């Protein structure tokens, strides 16, 4: 019998190439098993064969998402896999985002089952949990021994087209997909229990959690603004004319970084808005209404701020999932910090 073919994706660290200093290596593919592929192969058993392993540096992937995705898909295709496993990434943020991105691309393009694994706080979780089955792991690679068997078990169920049970039963992170089932008791009876628990101050669990948002502690005040580099970030959908990166007018899946070197103002011949959630007429006429470059240049000249970053960061706020937005933020914040930006004005429409 022909074996079920599996391709595995891992980063430079798990391929034993190196840590952060090797994180910029470009994608490569190797025949057979590498690193944690051993645990994957043994977990899947003799009916399966890990035919290839794709390796990519996390920094490279993060900086070249579109290119990396395309290259890696091209590397995977010739193996005609039946199953794709990425990671697990544990709590490694960029690795998690890479695993999620590539797993989703494989699922969409090659139409085969995909599984990955992450720690619940990995940013890749919020970005991809609705699209993928992500096995919940512990924070570090020490959990590999426990995580891999769960990945294998779920992957086999997918291959055998068995019913995927609830997150608790299978060990994946809840995807936020609402699925019907018959409870043992009717709703009104459960509601009476719930109210009595709530009144008694006992722990109770809602059957449908309302959307919740994270809180962060405020940063301390800036002492001397005149030494600070300031940047503008916006969710108002301001892009260069022609929208070169094709940022969506709603439900954005990407953000853009656009140069403003030497400009005194955002002029309507060079910039526009693609935001689909408001009447664009005013902003099309004057993009400074959203990215106040005209004022910020004045302030820069007056020496009130040290300098203005030579770009602004932009996306469309409307309909964009919290997971995606969070992912964008985690990514471009790193760039802002690397570029020495000390303060940000975020404008929303």
């Amino acid at each position, binding site marked *: 019998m022909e074996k079920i073919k599996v391709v595995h994706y891992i980063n430079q660290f798990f391929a034993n190439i190196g840590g952060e200093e090797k994180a910029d290596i470009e994608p490569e593919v190797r025949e057979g098993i590498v690193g944690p592929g051993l645990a994957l192969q043994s977990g899947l058993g003799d009916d399966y064969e890990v035919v290839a392993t794709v390796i990519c540096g996390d920094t490279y992937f993060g900086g070249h998402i579109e290119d990396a995705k395309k290259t890696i898909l091209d590397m995977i295709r010739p193996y005609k896999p039946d199953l794709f496993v990425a990671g697990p990434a544990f709590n490694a943020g960029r690795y998690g985002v890479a695993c999620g991105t590539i797993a989703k691309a494989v699922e969409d393009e090659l139409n085969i089952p995909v599984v990955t694994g992450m720690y619940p706080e990995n940013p890749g979780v919020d970005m991809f949990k*609705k699209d993928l089955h992500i096995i919940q792991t512990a924070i570090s690679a020490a959990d590999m021994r426990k995580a891999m068997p769960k990945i294998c078990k779920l992957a086999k169920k997918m291959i055998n087209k068995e019913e*995927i049970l*609830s*997150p608790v039963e299978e060990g994946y992170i*809840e*995807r*936020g*997909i*609402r*699925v*019907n*089932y*018959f*409870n*043992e*008791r*009717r*709703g*009104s*009876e*459960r*509601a*009476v229990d*719930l*109210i*009595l628990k*709530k*009144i*008694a101050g006992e722990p*109770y669990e*809602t*059957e*449908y*959690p*309302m*959307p*919740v948002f994270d809180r962060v502690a405020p940063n301390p005040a800036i002492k001397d603004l005149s030494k600070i580099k300031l940047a503008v970030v916006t969710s108002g959908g301001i892009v260069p004319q022609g929208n070169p990166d094709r940022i969506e007018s709603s439900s954005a899946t990407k953000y853009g970084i656009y140069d403003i070197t030497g400009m005194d103002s955002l002029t309507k011949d060079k910039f526009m808005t693609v935001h689909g959630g408001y009447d664009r007429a005013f902003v099309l006429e004057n993009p400074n209404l959203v990215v106040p470059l005209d004022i910020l240049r004045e302030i820069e000249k007056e020496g009130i701020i040290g300098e203005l970053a030579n770009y602004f960061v932009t996306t469309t706020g409307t309909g964009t999932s919290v997971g995606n937005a969070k992912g964008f933020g985690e990514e471009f914040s790193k760039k802002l910090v690397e570029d020495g930006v000390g303060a940000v004005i975020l404008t929303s429409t």
Partner: protein
Amino acid sequence: MRLELGKIKINDVQFGEMTRVEKGILYVNKEEIVKLVLEDDRIISARVELARPGESVRIAPVKDVIEPRVKVSGSGQIFPGTINKVKEVGSGRTHALVGATVITCGRIVGFQEGLIDMSGPSAKYTPFSETNNVCVVIEPVEGLETHDYEAAGRMAGLKVATYIGEAGKNIEPDEVVVYETKPVQEQIRQYPDLPKIGYIHMLQSQGLLHDTYYYGVDAKVMVPTFMYPTEIMDGAIISGNCVAPCDKVTTFHHLNNPVIEDLYKRHGKDLNFIGVILTNENVFLADKERSSDMVAKLCEFLGLDGVLITEEGYGNPDTDLMMNCKKVSQKGVKVVLITDEFPGRDGKSQSLADAVEEGDALVSCGNGNVIIDFPPMEKVIGTLDFIETMIGGYEGSLKPDGSIEAELQIVIASTIANGYNKLAARGY
């Protein structure tokens, strides 16, 4: 207020010379029912058909479902303010033909209503696959205006149910359940150590085909008020709503409100059921503001520790649900919400059209957007002509062999948002 509800168990329904109950079998006189319905000159024809559990029967499109009941003693008559004179009900003795219903069906407008399957895999989604149903198929006179037709259909069902209910008047019930709620101060004194629980019952009241009546008054023109729970069991509230099949609160469900039933089950044991606050779901935002203010005020006034809130419908009512939840919580009263969900066909979107952080304890009555397959049935009561235009149906829903593919929301009371069913949704 104290009501004895005598439950006469009905295990079968048959046509007979005389409408009567004998050994758990309901016999109905077809001609008398037709005559009763045709008293209304807005209706040109009426047909009576029977549907029993397990039969290969599909009923569509359904307007309302009503349990036949009759007042044996005590003030007022069944369905006060609509069928009978306005007079307070909810005390004395009432008999119910449990396991029997009257179902009105036929075309009201082109797009609403829903279906009931008496057997097969889709039967489990509606409680009416387990009841013995007297189906009244009505047809209006040509060109009858929509408002008039809705009213005629509504009255026809109530009239027939009242007529059939009379058959239970002198029958010894299989079981008598006593429900009692005292005036508020006495009620609190009766169980001083138990948490005081209320029920906020939101009535659909948006307009044509979206209305509910309380003692005959249109719920959209009333302000929130207090009601003894037993009043509802005598038909103080009736449904004039026939738009969203899955979460429609039929008149049957008003008579058999599960929240009231389950609160009474634990009344005096681990809670003290103080009563029901009735409110509405109006379109005008100023009305929502006023109604939710008054609901919160009533909760405070009654000194409640906790409330259960149910809604009828999706979208507009979600706003009332959340406003009630927020304002009642702000009075220091604990809240549990009961509702159904519409998270889209992939189940990935937000289930409700509104949300507040106070809504932290919610019971789910299921996802109405899920696609269900309905196998063909041997007999159709009513017509399948409108399946594709019914809510939950779509172009291509009805297959040539009579099978149907449609969203769960096409099934009557399948995700009813008062917790009557066991269906629920959970996160996957």
